[in-house]
């Protein structure tokens, strides 16, 4: 670790940070994207994310296999999704209020069951060393890319293709855009939404498992610092497109790495400002891409916030 890379550390850290930090954003955003395209909002994903982190860590520790941990986190996440989806199907239930309740429930359960797992060290998910061609240790470290990054990128592509080209994607889109049309076509709206919410929860659980099993790679109660909530906002920012979710997650990850990287090369005045970079960026982009003439492009018509 001796090579002196000086200012090159900043772009390198942003690149590495974009990859390392973006993965939970990506999984939560993809999950929420799927749920919202079916016409339902799940604001409770922050709770699911933290519970997934706890469940993944605990199961990985108990079984000694991090992949079992990821599977367990996905299962736990899908249970949260199923519960949310089931409650929301009743008349008069507001999915936003329910989501907030689910968030608090997830956090509370995670803290309760996670008490005993703060101390133990669980086996981590493996990373793929893609930087072995380089002699520079910093590049090697930056290119230690976790397996879930590729899974997430593949999922974004697959989901894009699904919405565009497959019958399942069409069904989800119809249910999300017009319940009347879906009913006329004889689709079971509640079942589609239930499954979409459950799948979204499962993806979020995997995102949580990445937090506790890969990066930063340990379970504690402050592990998420609001990433689940930011990812929900990110879906709107990405205009409900899985591919855009991928880029948006990378952008948020990279922006989050900016503050520490700048301090490490000596730019240390006003670091609170740099830490606000992801939020400033979001605001700026939302303002730039908004229009007073039309509603949000790409928004599913059945969504309770846009209806």
């Amino acid at each position, binding site marked *: *670790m*001796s*090579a*002196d*890379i000086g200012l090159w*550390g900043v772009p*390198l*850290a942003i690149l*590495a*940070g974009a990859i*390392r*930090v973006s993965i939970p954003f990506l999984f939560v955003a993809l999950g929420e994207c799927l749920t919202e395209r079916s016409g339902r909002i799940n604001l409770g994903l922050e709770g699911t994310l933290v519970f997934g982190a706890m469940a993944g860590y605990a199961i990985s520790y108990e079984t000694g296999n991090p992949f079992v941990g990821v599977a367990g986190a996905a299962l736990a996440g899908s249970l949260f999704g199923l519960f949310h989806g089931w409650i929301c199907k009743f008349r008069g239930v507001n999915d936003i209020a329910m989501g907030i309740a689910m968030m608090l429930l997830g956090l509370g359960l995670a*803290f309760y069951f996670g*008490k005993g797992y*703060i*101390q133990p*060290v669980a086996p981590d998910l493996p990373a793929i060393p893609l930087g072995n061609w380089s002699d520079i240790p*910093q590049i090697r*470290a*930056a290119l230690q890319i976790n397996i879930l990054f590729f899974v997430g990128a593949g999922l974004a592509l697959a989901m894009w293709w699904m919405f565009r080209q497959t019958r399942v994607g069409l069904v989800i889109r119809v249910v999300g855009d017009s319940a009347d049309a879906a009913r006329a076509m004889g689709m079971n709206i509640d079942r589609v939404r239930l499954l979409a919410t459950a799948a979204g929860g499962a993806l979020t659980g995997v995102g949580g498992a990445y*937090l506790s099993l890969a*990066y*930063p*790679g*340990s379970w*504690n*109660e*402050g*592990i998420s*610092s609001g*990433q689940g909530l930011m990812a929900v906002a990110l879906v709107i920012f990405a205009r409900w497109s899985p591919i855009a979710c991928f880029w948006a997650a990378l952008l948020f990850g990279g922006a*989050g*790495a900016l*503050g*520490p*990287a700048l*301090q*490490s*090369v*000596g730019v*240390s*005045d*006003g*670091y*609170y400002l740099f*830490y606000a970079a992801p939020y400033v960026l979001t605001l700026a982009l939302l303002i730039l891409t908004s229009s007073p003439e039309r509603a949000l492009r790409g928004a599913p018509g059945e969504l309770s916030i846009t209806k």
Partner: protein
Amino acid sequence: MTNRKTLSRRSFLNQSAAGIGALALGGTAQQAFAATPLTVGFIYVGPRDDFGYNQAHAEGAAAVAAMEGVTVIEEENVPETQDVQNTMQSMIQFDGATLLFPTSFGYFNPHILEVAPNYPDLRFQHCGGLWNSAEHPSNVGSYFGYIGMGQYLNGIAAGHATQSKKIGFVAAKPIPQVLNNINSFLLGARAVDPEIVCQVIFTGEWSLAVKEAEATNALADQGCDVITCHVDGPKVVVETAAGRGAYVCGYHADQSALAPDLYLTGAEWNWAGVYQNMIETVQAGGSIDNFVRGGLADGFIKMSPLGPAVSDAARNQFEAVKAEIMQGGFAAIKGPLNDNEGNVIATASQSFPEDDVALESMDYLVEGVIGSTGA
């Protein structure tokens, strides 16, 4: 000059002995205690098993809970906001607590200072605040340890271990105690080799796992090969640094289990004896001094056992300096010394021994620290 009272080792031993003696008297003494049960509340800003600050306090609380005639109530994850005032109120009104230990730095001003005047008969013991009789209520007390000395010793171990002559520090917020730790860490390393520099990164919060990991990676990217920290739970920093192959110096508690090969040593709190002593004072009908400080010699802090990567030369210097600190009055900040903006901190004849209260309003980073207080 000041009304500062240091808890000396002698009074500590005397009072401990008195307490043990009282216990040994058996039935009557125990009944006397039982007649006036004492409810003590501990409030933590994070989880109490965080391998760090809160764990160190919780271990102290566990030692108190083991005492006769004491009921301990605890609450974790209480933010440094109105929440802590609510927690204090509920501990007082529902649980009948008469002695409170709100342990996080940010609880002091304004929260303890707002609640304490409403309960003049109760006692609020805060860790780290700079209490003074002119401004603050008399039922508020402050206690802290000279943990900067522990970071100075960390620095000595780091100074021997570093190859790149660049060491790193992940810090939460630029408050005096954190700055003192950063400065002490570098000055310890410079006692080994005056060429060493220390890169600091502030995360802005006591516990932000992802940002701490990013900061640690950024330090490793810049060639820092020994890393320590001052955040509430050092687990993420220790694991990330070790993952990058850097040596680690611990803080708050013993983290050697997280990086057995790369852990050099660590500056740890040792609250058990300090807390028991305070409880005994109250049980004996006395009142705790408002301003309690102590260091390595007083048993307020301790060092983790030296790890396998520590060389013999490092071990010798470490033990020699430790022995010097044990005698009391050791000064890490001594002249001639400038801060990293070129201002004079201490002239050649000046020095600030560990118990100098001026250190507790430190607002500078010394020469050789790369970073700024952000002011």
